[in-house]
């Protein structure tokens, strides 16, 4: 069995479904035997899903005054 230290750096790609087939297999096998890492991966998946479910709803609208200030920044930059 691979150690948690070997598996830990693979969890981000695993959770994002960007791990290679080989690495996915390694993580899967480890999770089957390690409740600790399983907990970590579940936490990462849940948090990822929570944020992505909200997506652009998390983006605040910039104040109108800021929009004006930034638009005028272009003329200052040109000057």
């Amino acid at each position, binding site marked *: 069995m691979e150690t948690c230290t070997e598996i830990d750096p693979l969890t981000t790609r695993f959770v994002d479904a960007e791990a290679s087939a080989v690495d996915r297999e390694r993580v899967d096998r480890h999770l089957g035997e390690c409740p600790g890492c399983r907990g*970590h991966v579940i936490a990462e998946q*849940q*948090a990822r899903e929570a944020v992505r479910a909200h997506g652009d709803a*998390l*983006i605040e609208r910039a104040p109108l005054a800021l929009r004006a200030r930034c638009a005028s*920044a272009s003329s200052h930059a040109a000057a």
Partner: protein
Amino acid sequence: MPEMPTGADPIGADPRRRHLPVTYTGGNNLGRRGVPVPGAGHVTVLRRRQTSTVGSESAAFEQEALALLDRLYAAALRLTRNEADAEDLVQDTYLRAFRSAGQFKPGTNLRGWLYTILHNTFLNQVRDRSRNPVDTDSEVVEQAPAAGEGAGNPEELLLRATMDTELRAALDRLPEAFREAVWLRDVEQFSYDEIAGIVGAPIGTVMSRISRGRRALFDQLVARSARVARRASAFGGDVAGKRV
């Protein structure tokens, strides 16, 4: 899914090629979804400078950049956690971006380029105000929570039902480097390479920050769910455990 600046080159061959302070040092596949500009060689570019298209090209560039204002402001709020500082940060970012417009390579990722400037401008501002050190990695690895230890799935519904403001508040409680990494990955949906370019860190560090950040965020959300459930049960069992 946020739009990437794809399709037709948004700003044309930008005529203002000069050496300017802001450089993009990020991953080299940043422009992979962009469209290269065939024949936008230096000579052509220089000649175009004389023509009247210059004004409209830079206007298009500015328009393209300003279309990302809300996204940059939201990211600035996550970095500064303060509206006044976020506004200053965004304004400085646009000022630097417009000044350095000639450094932007047409057909590459404008959103990534602007985020790089935002990140660097933020670091400069923090440094100027000599606040807390920015590198929180070591600090946070220590306190890296035993997240999800024995976490079953009863929280799942609660996590999904979290409101925007609560989710933002939970994010704002994360250490800065983690907060930024999770935001860039899960809200802006940049690739690891792109994030590495924006924050100027190796890709392994970026993935580690995303992983730790998500775990810490999960803990924040679960703790909040537990508080809500306790409060609800205090008002009678009826609402307890249901959607909040």
